[in-house]
């Protein structure tokens, strides 16, 4: 249609201009967010980075600008066990949260019917009480004289005779505190799956378990990845659970940062610790997402 071609071309130009205008509006709308992030994220981050390179002046708690890369070496050599513990505890806590959250999210998404909204409210209900308060509550729940510990002791199931002030308590606390962050993305992913796909799998000779493995699980993977990241990342930087529920041997890297900042007033090492944590987490996340993107996780 040669006669129509120029008309079509002309129309395209005006569409292009419209798109451009809309793009500019989008950037304008982004401005407040960018300003906020710049002020409250980038500026402190840069400041923290310079702090991590400061050198001592001789007076405790007072530092001068410098280029002390040794702060990073100190941070690693003194605190590597805390790093390892952080990742082990939060890793186990994440797996535990996934195991608890998946069936729950599945139930809410597919079986809860009219109870769905109520159950979702219950999932977020703990947020109405403070994080600190809830973790304190676990001290009572897991206390040596408490119901759980005495029952398990009566059954001779606790090698150390107690739960509080052991890694078990820290991991329990972490899984509990970050559970909603696991349930909600899982629910969102599962809820989007058409139940007819499960019927179709059954119709095509897949037993309920195979149907789950081949259809539901792969389709819920985005939720699994989001949930595990939202649990693992804050859990590995957390220090409240280790402080309140663990013994001094169960300290995590968050505790190391807190002690250096608030007690030793060794700001450069504390900042260096923060930066190392910030570098390791994205590296781990990257490896994890790469694996999740392939068949390896399926």
């Amino acid at each position, binding site marked *: 249609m040669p006669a129509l071609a120029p008309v079509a071309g002309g129309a395209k130009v005006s569409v292009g201009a419209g798109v451009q205008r809309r793009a500019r509006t989008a950037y304008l709308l982004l401005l407040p967010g960018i300003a906020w992030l710049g002020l409250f994220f980038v500026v402190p981050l840069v400041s923290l980075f310079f702090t991590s390179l400061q050198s001592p002046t001789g007076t405790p708690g007072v530092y001068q600008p410098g280029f002390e890369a040794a702060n990073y070496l100190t941070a690693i050599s003194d605190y590597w066990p805390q790093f390892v513990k952080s990742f082990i505890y939060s890793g186990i806590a994440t797996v535990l949260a996934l195991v608890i959250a998946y069936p729950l999210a599945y139930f809410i998404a597919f079986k809860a019917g009219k109870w769905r909204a109520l159950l979702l409210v219950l999932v977020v209900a703990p947020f109405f009480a403070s994080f600190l308060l809830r973790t304190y509550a676990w001290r009572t729940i897991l206390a040596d004289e408490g119901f759980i510990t005495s029952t398990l002791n009566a059954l001779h199931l606790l090698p150390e005779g107690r739960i509080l002030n052991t890694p078990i308590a820290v991991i329990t606390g972490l899984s509990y505190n970050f559970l909603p962050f696991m349930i909600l993305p899982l629910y969102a992913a599962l809820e989007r799956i058409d139940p007819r796909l499960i019927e179709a799998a059954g119709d095509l*000779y897949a037993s309920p378990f195979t149907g789950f493995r081949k259809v539901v699980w792969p389709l819920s993977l985005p939720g699994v990845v989001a949930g595990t990241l939202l649990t693992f990342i804050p859990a590995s930087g957390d220090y409240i659970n280790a402080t309140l529920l663990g013994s001094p041997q169960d300290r995590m890297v968050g505790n190391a940062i807190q002690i250096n900042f608030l007690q030793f007033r060794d700001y450069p090492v504390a900042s260096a610790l923060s930066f190392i944590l910030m570098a390791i987490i994205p590296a781990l996340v990257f490896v994890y997402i790469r694996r999740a993107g392939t068949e390896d996780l399926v």
Partner: protein
Amino acid sequence: MSAPSGDEVQDLRLVNLVKSFGDFTAVDELTLTIPAGSFFALLGPSGCGKTTTLRMVAGLEAPTSGQIMLGSTDITDEKPYRRHVNTVFQSYALFPHLDIFENVAFGLRRRGIKDVAGPVNQMLELVELGPMARRKPAQLSGGQQQRVAVARALINQPGVLLLDEPLGALDLKLRRQMQIELKRIQTEVGTTFVHVTHDQEEAMTMADTVAVMNKGRIEQMGPPVEIYDLPKTAFVANFLGQSNGVVGAVQGRSGDDLIVGGPGGSYNVPAARSTRQEGEILLGVRPEKLSIATGGSTSSVPDRHNRATGKVTDASFTGVSTQYLVMTTWGDEWTVFEQNRSVDLLHPGDEVVIHWAPEHTFGLDVPAGQ
């Protein structure tokens, strides 16, 4: 209905099948034999129990009572993933994370068949989707997805293929195309197709046998031409195509015909085409069986024809034919389809005589409330 004809023939038989949801009976004492290799349509309005029936055959819904037999095997309590029955779902339910090849291979893989490439490619050829094998369902058009759904079910060579409103999501043109396509595939593979639809035209175009369902029961079953020509209930007469009706009382016989006195005079109906031989009956006739005569030409109406007089209230020209609405002298509105053999159309207000051959009339029980 033919009697079950032996083990090797996988007739599908439903025996006294009942499904209730609480107080509501969705399927009521359904007994039905679907001969192997036939294209069978379950036709009815929404809520008539046709989809529930299909889901029970697929094993997705457990019957309240009754039996489902495939050949000589009772499959009533067999798990869906063990029955040799496959379904084409209404929304296709293709697995969005798998490509077309893997969607089609799904059933074979679940049954532990290792070498799937041959059968899958062959099946994709059958539905003319060979080049699409490595695409994801979302990259396909509605019609293509539909064919993948058919291929994914058919590759398992099921005893019965169930199709749940498979063309409902397609536009009219594509639907026509797919009707022909599905019929071709069915003829080619020879599998029993049980097709659930609320579209009477779709059912009549494709099926060898149509069962019209209403309120959980089958109202009438038979070849499309047969039930269209001679509906046995008022529901069938109106659901399958259009009908004009007039209630009258049997006054006597004349040879093989009943003579029925109605509001516009008396009408003849062959006794064999009436479900009742005496008392009140509902006479019906299809709109395309009617002819219209005006003023001068009324004398040419054959004497043996039934006739009704009235006034044209509406004429809509559709190209091939014109649809007239005619208000009869007793105040009913009748529909008449006239082929456009001449260019002289009638106009609203024209006085006309509608007439038709007695052998095109059918007599039915008067439904309650009429």
